[in-house]
């Protein structure tokens, strides 16, 4: 079926099966491979994108559910004020190791800080626990979020 998606503030026409997950529409139909496939079951968070500012697992999101909503991906996240701060902190602190999960981590962190600009330690855990980093860069992920939020960080 044919539909129009709004991705990173641009209208994009897509012709794909209605049951095709947003993840695969992004990767295959829109040539945007920044959003990553990790488990296909909503368990790892690598495919996280924002739908109207909410973090969702794009492998579990049908394109029919995404139609009519603002879709933000890693390729466009710096257009959001929180996204810009998160990406800057991620770069400054050098969070990635292999880097594969980091698009999803950045999207979840952006959703968290957009909704909650000064998160507590508990809030950060709640916001980020759905995103697995197999390299275990969690020390820097937490620090980057705190820095992006302008919270005090340990040296």
């Amino acid at each position, binding site marked *: 079926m044919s539909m129009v998606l709004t991705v990173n503030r641009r209208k994009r026409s897509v012709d794909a*099966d209605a049951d*095709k*997950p947003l993840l*695969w529409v992004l990767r*295959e139909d829109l*040539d*945007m*491979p*920044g*959003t*990553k*496939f*990790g*488990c*296909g*079951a909503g*368990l*790892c968070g*690598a495919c996280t994108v924002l739908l109207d500012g909410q973090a969702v697992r794009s492998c579990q999101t049908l394109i029919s559910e995404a139609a009519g909503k603002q879709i933000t*991906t*890693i*390729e466009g996240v*710096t257009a959001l004020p929180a996204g810009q701060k998160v*990406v800057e902190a*991620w*770069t400054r602190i*050098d*969070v*990635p*190791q*292999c*880097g*594969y*999960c*980091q*698009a999803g981590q*950045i999207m979840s962190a952006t959703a968290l800080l957009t909704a909650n600009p000064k998160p507590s330690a508990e809030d*950060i*855990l709640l916001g*980020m*626990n*759905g*995103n*697995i*980093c*197999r*390299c*275990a*860069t*969690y*020390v*820097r*992920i*937490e620090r980057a979020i705190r820095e992006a939020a302008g919270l005090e960080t*340990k040296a």
Partner: protein
Amino acid sequence: MNRDRTKGIDRRSFIAASLAAGAALTFEAKIALAAGPGVAEATMLNAFIRILPDNSVIIGAKNPEIGQGIKTMLPMLLADELDVSWEQVKIEQTDANEKLYGPQVAGGSTATPMNWLPARQAGAAARAMLVSAAAAQWKVDAASLTTAGGRVVDKAGGRSATYASLAKAAAAQPAPDLAKVPLKKPNEFHIIGTPKKGVDTPKIVRGEPLFGIDTRLPGLLHAAMVKCPAIGGTLASYDDSAVKSARGVVAVVPISSGQCPAGKQDAVAIVGTSWWAVQKLRDKLVVQWDIAAQQGFSTELYARQAAEALGKAPDATLFKAGDADAALAKAAKVVTGDYSYPFLAHATLEPQNCTALWHEGGTVEFWAPTQNPGNGRKDVAAMMGIAPEAITIHMTRIGGGFGRRLMNDYMVMAGQIAKAVPGRPVKLLFDRTDDMRNDYYRPGGWHRFTAGIDASGALVAFKDHFVTFGANGKAIRAADMPASEFPASVVPDTHLAQSFLTTNLTTGWLRAPTSNAMAFVYQSFMDEVAEAAGTDLPALMLRTLGAPRDLPTERPTVVFSTARARAVIERVVAFAGWTGKPSAVPGKGRGFGFYFSHRGYFAEVVDVTVTDGAVKVDKVWIAGDIGSQIINPLNAEHQAQGAAIDGLAQALVWQPVVQEAGAVQTVTFSDFPLLRMDAKPAEIAISWVKNDYPPTGLGEPTLPPVIPAVANAIRAATGKRLRSLPLQLA
């Protein structure tokens, strides 16, 4: 090309400078690496440096990048000695070409020891030719000139020249003797030892395509596979009539073991224009497998067989010194303990994948996220009956390695699929289920320990009956144990013995292979021995290590220095404020672990709090010795912290890979949970012990000791001794 070689140097070593198109000055250095302490084997380094007319510098990064930071680190070594500023440097991933670049492997934490000297020599030799060119031009003594920021400076003459402006003259300079070219003293380094961010970080945070799964090519096809449920089983027959007619399907390709010597990967691949579409069609493919020879294998069977084997005499002796039984009979105290650990998967977050293009004329091109492209080339050549030279391998960034991608099954399979659709690139992608079921697993193992202590508390006798997996009287891949395992190497009356079980599962190396299991069982049992001897583990270790000396290992070029071991133990004891006394707070406990692996010496202390059977790791202290120099401190801290948390995952979070009727049943991240942020320790503190030994690798050696440290901390906190992984109370 100027390939003059000075008499007396290794004839295989040279540096050549040439002018390439666009007046770029290119240095190619080929350096023989002598076998010696800290170097794995005699081999070659091939490096390239290109100085562009705008005085920017391109440095080739030759090793696979799996997140260990090698793409940044190796060029740091060259750039420092070349004496350019880091801001001038652009880094290019090279292709895989072992003939050109020598070993290109991400495994065994070997890149630092192998490249530390030769990479610097290549940079220094290039610099020397640029200095000679300037000296000739200015008619001054080269020794009077200095360099900085990509310029040659003549202080006395008040002049300087960019490297780029000297390109033509430098290309005509005689090449210096690589073995004698002066290298910087450590206090002269301006890049080595300074924090450098990952070169790909800006691209990663923008979501740019970097990984194998992101490979994009004109006309790219996609392949999903239906894999034999039991590893080693074979394809009996298949019916693809319901699949071939589906929209977008281009081909259905059987992949058979007969053509696939590297790993019995029987599968049927569906090839089409969308991976999402072809993977959905897998249900419509009717496949009959022959798994008669595999279906008897199960996790339960292994446990039963292991228990039986432990009750009988071992199959073979691994190491024997003195008479352990006689010494045990005379010992003041005897300690025993049975330990075990399960099969584990690698669970790289980027599922296995590979893109291949079969060209007319019988050559094949790969875009492969592989940790060992050289082996991939060999496997593909053998499987497809083509010459190794007919295979081109482009190395992509890799979404996690951990040893999984030392094996190249996905290359072998993608090559077969590509041959069926000649002229069109095709990307094979495993889904998570495929990835979990078709791993090269860390094998499980069982140990029965017996130790004897004399009246003074000294460890005087030691036995380990190790039940592992083997074939033909030998341990299979990654199921072995070193005969030099400490403390067997120092206890006078010792017997290490093994018995072998068989499995159809393919096994392989998981980050800090062997060590991740041995550290747990040996250092946990040593904690029991310490308790029985009325002391604590750091004290028992120092006593057992004894006087400073070098002990041999399995590898002729690697020794185990008891002095270096002592130094990290003493450091972490001071660093963590270890007293050996139990915590006054109920539920809190502190544990210690030491391990030597991959040439690195690590002693670690872990604090835990146990509440209602749940273990929370509060803090980890790490004292590590990887030689004289931390090359990139920003990444070193990151690697050590990541590896420590990876070890905690093995200790506390990962569940066993379960096998029934020949087939692995562990297929999702629900069955095989990975560690999440909530299990991260509040703090991981690191202290580096520096000395005069050459620098060694850091991808792995931090991991092993944290596992027994946690187990020992749980013992301290609860009084419970957990002897199998994962560590579970109640």
